[in-house]
């Protein structure tokens, strides 16, 4: 197979997220200040992955301040009273460590990967950073420009990303998942030091954080070190339940067209509003996961076989389900027409495949293959401590439990063909969807659709 993913697929986090193997060794405890800790032993190399996850993301921003959660993530590297400037980063570099950070709608995370003996040192730095951040305009202003260049690179320069932003904004009629995580550019441009500090004081507190440690450690030493470091940080804010505006009954399918003269390959994509792993009824998100796999993962998936191989109407086609979120999941699909075929041709072919999945059950063989593959992903994940750490962290930061992560393979095993068909019927509903067209010009869009 061609190993270049279609651009549309790259924009979304594809994969069997949340699917860690049942690992009896995972330990989970809470310190007296409310900070949760997860320990995942992996003794193959003398390395440790240390992460802190704050249960705050772009969907928790005040309207008008979009991009603030992500901007604060950048500013968290600017130093504290105890460890000014880049002392933390210098300490990581001095031992050959790696560090990074990330923001989504639901959480903000920071991590270091270091030789095992330096875990406690990292914990002390990170504990200090929960409440000790110091910001001056001298460091805030250049960093705002960095973020604006990040927006240029990821979004403004990229028609696919611009379409994806517009599609999210159209998918969510009321919920803040419609805001881009990086923010709307005019609002990013106005963010400042006071905004960042107010957001920091409101959400960065040990009782709103989860620490995940994966690597060559024992739960006992992690617990002792965590109590010595994180345990000393007093909670500084009460955290209200995360109740965001809900979606109303969605009644009208939406379409969005983005035209850019640079578009050389038109494409169509669609998002459906679905439950997430956290909000789904038992078995529902697992059925959606299996459905996404059968519909659109790999060269033998329904979409690829029908559109690319048999009907030769598309160059590429696929589907995915994003299940890890506090409030809603998202089911996505995409296809690009062959030269000479229109977006309309492709969309019709996609809809025919979907109709079949709503009306008929998948074959026993398809079901077995999909489940085997998804369960194997959980075993492959054991090879990568950073992947496991991310799965547990993302799950806990979006309202799941350690047990939910561990039971995932068994729940996938239990999915029936009827459940897959029912998931297609219930959730692949055009009324709660947005379809996006990426085209070269609006005139071309009219001519071809």
């Amino acid at each position: 197979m061609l190993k270049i993913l279609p651009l549309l697929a790259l924009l979304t986090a594809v994969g069997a997220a949340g699917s860690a193997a049942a690992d009896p060794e995972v330990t989970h405890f809470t310190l007296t200040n409310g900070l949760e800790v997860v320990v995942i032993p992996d003794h193959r190399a003398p390395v440790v992955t240390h992460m802190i996850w704050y249960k705050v993301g772009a969907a928790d921003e005040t309207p008008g301040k979009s991009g603030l959660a992500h901007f604060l993530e950048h500013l968290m590297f600017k130093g504290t009273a105890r460890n000014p400037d880049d002392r933390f980063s210098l300490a990581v570099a001095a031992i050959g460590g790696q560090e990074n950070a990330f923001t989504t709608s639901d959480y903000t995370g920071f991590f270091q990967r270091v030789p095992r003996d330096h875990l406690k040192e990292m914990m002390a730095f990170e504990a200090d950073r929960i409440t000790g951040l110091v910001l001056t305009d001298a460091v805030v202003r250049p960093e705002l420009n960095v973020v604006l260049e990040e927006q240029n690179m990821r979004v403004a320069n990229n028609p696919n990303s611009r379409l994806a932003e517009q599609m999210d904004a159209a998918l969510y009629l009321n919920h803040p998942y419609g805001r881009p995580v990086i923010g709307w550019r005019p609002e990013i441009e106005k963010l400042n030091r006071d905004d960042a500090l107010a957001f920091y004081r409101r959400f960065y507190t040990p009782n709103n954080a989860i620490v995940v440690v994966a690597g060559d450690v024992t739960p006992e030493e992690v617990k002792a070190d965590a109590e010595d470091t994180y345990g000393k940080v007093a909670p500084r804010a009460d955290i209200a339940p995360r109740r965001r505006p809900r979606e109303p009954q969605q009644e009208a399918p939406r379409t969005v067209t983005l035209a850019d003269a640079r578009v050389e390959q038109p494409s169509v994509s669609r998002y459906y509003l679905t439950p997430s792993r956290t909000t789904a009824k038992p078995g529902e998100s697992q059925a959606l996961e299996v459905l996404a796999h059968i519909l659109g993962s790999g060269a033998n998936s329904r979409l690829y076989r029908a559109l690319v191989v048999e009907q030769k109407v598309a160059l590429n086609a696929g589907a995915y389900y994003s299940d890890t979120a506090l409030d809603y999941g998202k089911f996505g699909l995409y296809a690009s027409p062959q030269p000479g075929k229109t977006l309309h041709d492709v969309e019709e072919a996609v809809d025919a495949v979907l109709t079949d999945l709503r009306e008929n059950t998948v074959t026993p063989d398809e079901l077995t293959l999909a489940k085997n593959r998804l369960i194997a992903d959980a075993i492959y994940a054991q090879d990568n401590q950073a992947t496991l750490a991310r799965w547990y962290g993302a799950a806990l930061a979006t309202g799941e439990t350690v047990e939910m992560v561990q039971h995932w393979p068994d729940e996938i095993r239990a999915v029936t063909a009827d459940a897959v068909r029912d998931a297609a019927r219930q959730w692949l509903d055009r009324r709660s969807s947005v379809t996006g067209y990426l085209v070269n010009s609006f005139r071309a869009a009219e001519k071809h659709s």
Partner: protein
Amino acid sequence: MSAASMFSAWLVRRLAVACLAIALVTAPAMATTIERVVSPGGIVAWLVHEPAVPLIAIDFSFAGGSAQDPAGKAGTASLVAALLDEGVGDFDSKAFHARLERKAIELGFQADRDALRGTLRTLAENREEAFEDLRLALTAPRFDPADVEIIRAQIISNLRRATTSPSEIASIRWWQTAFANHPYGHPVNGTLESVPTVSIDDLKAYAHRVLARDDLKVAVVGDIDAEAVKAMLDRVFGGLPARADLAVVADVLPQGIGRRIVTRLDVPQTVIMFGGLGISRQDPDFMAAYIVNHILGGGSFSSRLYQEVREKRGLAYSVHDSLVWLKHAPLFIGGTATRAERATETLDIVQKEIARLADNGPTADELAKAKSFLNGSFPLNLDTSGKIAALLVQLQVDNLGIDYFTRRSKMIDAVTLADARRVAKRLLGGGLLVTVVGRPDGLLSSSAE
């Protein structure tokens, strides 16, 4: 991973550099040892036997790559790589994909300028079937016309997209200019002119010429012992021709040094790529060059380019520089991206920093910190089977010897400040070829001085 896109503050994005060799690593506290295994048929593999996770990772490399594309048929190697895991032996592509998926076997191939590389990932319990699948892919690829046309159309679509992508244009112009009239000059994936002309006979001929035993490097990591590896080697690779039939590729110096090539494209962010002659992997000065590159723009926030371009001035989200040691041309290549009105200033700073390091060398403090980073970072590169396997193949390709792990930190520590200064001049004093894409204010193409 989540409903929303993920943003990363520190992610270092590289321009599309087709052959990026793996980061070097230092002597580790290896949990396991590397064993050189020779099969009865004389095929060599480096093995790390690690039974803790029930997986096997195999990486391998055949000398060849896009430098062996026939004249006028650029992209042949990439097409072959994309088609080796389509139909094989008695299995058409549908049957073969089903076989792989049923056992969750991951098989992939990729071409770069110098090599055709592959990876196999399997659960240990499925190893016999996985080995058979790999054997068939290497010795009995079908290149069925229907599969060839699907993959060809996907590659052409990607090439068309690349014609309006600023980073792709910058990269294509750079390589085309640096290696005019040399096989390194054409894009690895070919061109819109060449890919349509590659015939099935060309693909078969390429596979027959390149997939051979004499310049094959293999690494195996995971739950498998030496005896089983020996049997695997003869079974999988034993049926290949003893000798490859490769065209002679000349050693070459990059051309166009001193030139700046500006391509106008209507995008908000201007992309800049720069590079010049590097230092060979076999050169006694290589390790000093590796350290100098780290200080200039390699991977850590403390690099001079990162500090000057991003941290102090907020000009870019990403700025970086790497050594790229192609078999016939050592290079260093870097890149950044900034807003149109700051493009001149940004390029100016990059060039000044390169000149300053060339003229004065690093400080003693920078040298000490770089050594500390490069020594400490070793185990982080060895915490997954896939990372270890990729590294073991690269060490064989680079002909560094199985004891390299024990020598590396001594080689780093042996670099003196005088060495670093001398090599900084040698590496960075030779001038740059620069490609710029966007609508940069005040920047025009210029010819060599």
